[in-house]
């Protein structure tokens, strides 16, 4: 039988109620997925809004990826709630002083925006399929046309205007949504580890690098699966984008950490103990060393050397995979880390993640895989490839 709760071992002095860690691994997954949404949308906007042609091969794919991740975002929250059946209460009676009250609206708005933009982008395909296909799949596409079969130049130009407008609105939308996730943590004055004005931009830039990395990995994988050559120019562009945004992300994190240490407010001794002890592996070694500095150095080296061909692809994909792990670790170190430092400033806790129950490693793994299962289906229904070759 599943335990009602897990007691976290502690050292020093903690408040008695702190011994049960309130936010578990699922609250690590939630900002991670939201970040992937924002990052993937950024990639798509670079083409849709800023007209960067080299990103054309991944622009539509990025949009689908963003949507598939966004559809899963509410799940970790729902699974975490004590009363999931009351999940709509914040939307029915939003308590307007709460940073979290707006989530339902912000997420709802963004899902609608993504659905609309995807609909406009894939409308020609939907109409074409609706006219060609019979049976259930035909019906599916016919419903999706929403009764509009007009593919005339006038209609398409109208669609393009909408795509552009939605992408423009989507930039502050996606980034606002994720910056706001950072605000949920940064605005809490009860925990020194979270309480920082820099938390929203830190979340935002780490989100962008995770989204770009995800697209690098997925694009390379999809090309391999579809047996089509990878567009090197596109991969190189994404590598530059990753490198650029990583500079911001790393700088912001460094500044935030330096400020925390330099301010040295009450409880800093415990934070230092935490930083020097439990954080050696998850933060210094994995997040910073292997998954941040190593990819930056590797990317810098490849850019400097002008690496080309397969070496470039392998190198960039490796970096992207490391960054994906690094951002996940960043979420972990923020969400779990904040709770492992006691509010007393005089004790440390250790969160032990259970493996098989509602809020466990298994659930987290399923939630992390879910967007890609959706995506695998979505790319078959709505092929986003510019080269026209469908997935096998």
């Amino acid at each position, binding site marked *: 039988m599943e335990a009602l709760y897990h007691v976290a071992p502690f050292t020093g002095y903690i408040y008695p109620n702190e011994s049960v860690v309130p936010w578990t691994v699922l609250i690590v997954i939630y900002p991670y997925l939201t970040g992937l949404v924002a990052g993937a949308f950024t990639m798509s906007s670079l083409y849709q809004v800023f007209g960067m042609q080299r990103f054309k091969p991944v622009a539509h794919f990025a949009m689908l990826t963003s949507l598939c991740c966004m559809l899963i975002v509410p799940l970790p929250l729902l699974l975490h709630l004590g009363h999931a059946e009351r999940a709509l209460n914040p939307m029915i009676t939003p308590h*307007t002083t709460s940073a979290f009250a707006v989530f339902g609206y912000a997420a709802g708005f963004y899902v609608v925006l993504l659905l*609309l933009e995807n609909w406009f982008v894939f409308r020609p395909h939907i109409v074409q399929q609706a006219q060609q296909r019979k049976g259930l799949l035909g019906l599916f596409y016919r419903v999706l046309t929403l009764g509009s079969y007009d593919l005339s130049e006038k209609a398409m130009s109208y669609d393009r205007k909408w795509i552009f407008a939605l992408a423009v609105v989507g930039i502050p939308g996606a980034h606002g949504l994720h910056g706001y996730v950072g605000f949920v943590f940064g605005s809490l004055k009860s925990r020194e580890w979270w309480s920082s004005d820099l938390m929203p931009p830190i979340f935002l830039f780490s989100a962008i690098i995770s989204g770009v990395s995800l697209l690098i990995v997925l694009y390379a994988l999809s090309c391999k699966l579809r047996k089509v050559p990878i567009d090197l120019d596109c991969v190189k562009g994404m590598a530059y984008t990753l490198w650029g945004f990583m500079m911001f992300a790393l700088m912001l994190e460094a500044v935030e950490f330096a400020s925390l240490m330099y301010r040295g407010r009450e409880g800093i001794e415990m934070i230092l103990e935490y930083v020097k002890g439990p954080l050696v592996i998850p933060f210094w070694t994995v997040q910073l060393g292997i998954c941040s500095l190593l990819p930056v150095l590797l990317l810098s080296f490849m850019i400097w050397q002008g690496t080309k061909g397969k070496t470039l692809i392998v190198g960039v994909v490796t970096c992207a995979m490391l960054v994906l792990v690094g951002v996940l670790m960043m979420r972990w170190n923020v969400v779990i880390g904040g709770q492992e430092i006691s509010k007393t400033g005089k004790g440390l806790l250790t969160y032990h993640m259970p493996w098989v129950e509602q809020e466990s490693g298994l659930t987290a793994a399923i939630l992390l895989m879910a967007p890609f299962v959706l995506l695998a289906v979505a790319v078959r229904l709505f092929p986003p490839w510019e080269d026209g070759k469908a997935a096998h």
Partner: protein
Amino acid sequence: MENKVEKLEEDGRRKFLRLFGAAIGGGGMAIAANSLLPEAAATETPAKAAIPAIPGYDWSQHHWAFGVDATKCIGCLRCVEACKVENNVAKDPNHFRTWVERYVTLEGEEKARIDSQQDPVNIAAAGAEGKYRFANRYKDAKVEKAFFVPKLCNHCTHPACVQVCPTGATYKTDDGVVVIDHTYCIGCQYCVQACPYGARFFNEEKRVTDKCTWCYHRITKGLNPACVEVCPVSARVFGDRNDKQSPISIFLRNNRVTVLKPESGNAPNVFYVGIDKEVG
């Protein structure tokens, strides 16, 4: 003709899309703007519309507050036990509406050693998880200074927990008590995170957050909170600040008091006498 109909439908859809986008965007912005208002707004209680119908009780006539005289507390933990029984709090060492901390400074040491009834050594001394006592763990040490500090929800004037609650399930009543509507709480535990005092916990049975209510069911009937009632040394003081002769009014008049973590801006309403600098 068909084209015209199609055109009309298309126009309708466009208008709908525009309106829909504007409505959702506008609504979201309004809420986002409101959520940035200062915490003073947190006290704007959604419960104002629904004053509880307690016979013979008018919450606008009271202003409850709590006092703790740490110089009197003997660490007997009867308050903790009474609270657990009165409020049906889980009898384990991880969920408390009130608790007591022990601060002991040994000779030659600068920092106090702190523990509460939750410490494994104290649980072992009590003999069971549902029983509470402080182990005599310093009997062979040279103690320079020692004192006990009862803790509970501070029922703050600007409660961070109320500010962050996404549904308004937790709110501040007109008589100054912060309560939780267990039938409306979604159990997100954002309030647990926001409370700087560790006063909130997750009620595993009801799947909602829980905390001290100053025994609201008792005080609205003219009784004291259970912890105050059982305290053998009157270390806990409770009363109505609107009544100048109430125990709390006298306590506040006769003592120089302090509150916990005043820098948090929460403005607690549990006032302490006789605590040391490291108490937070």
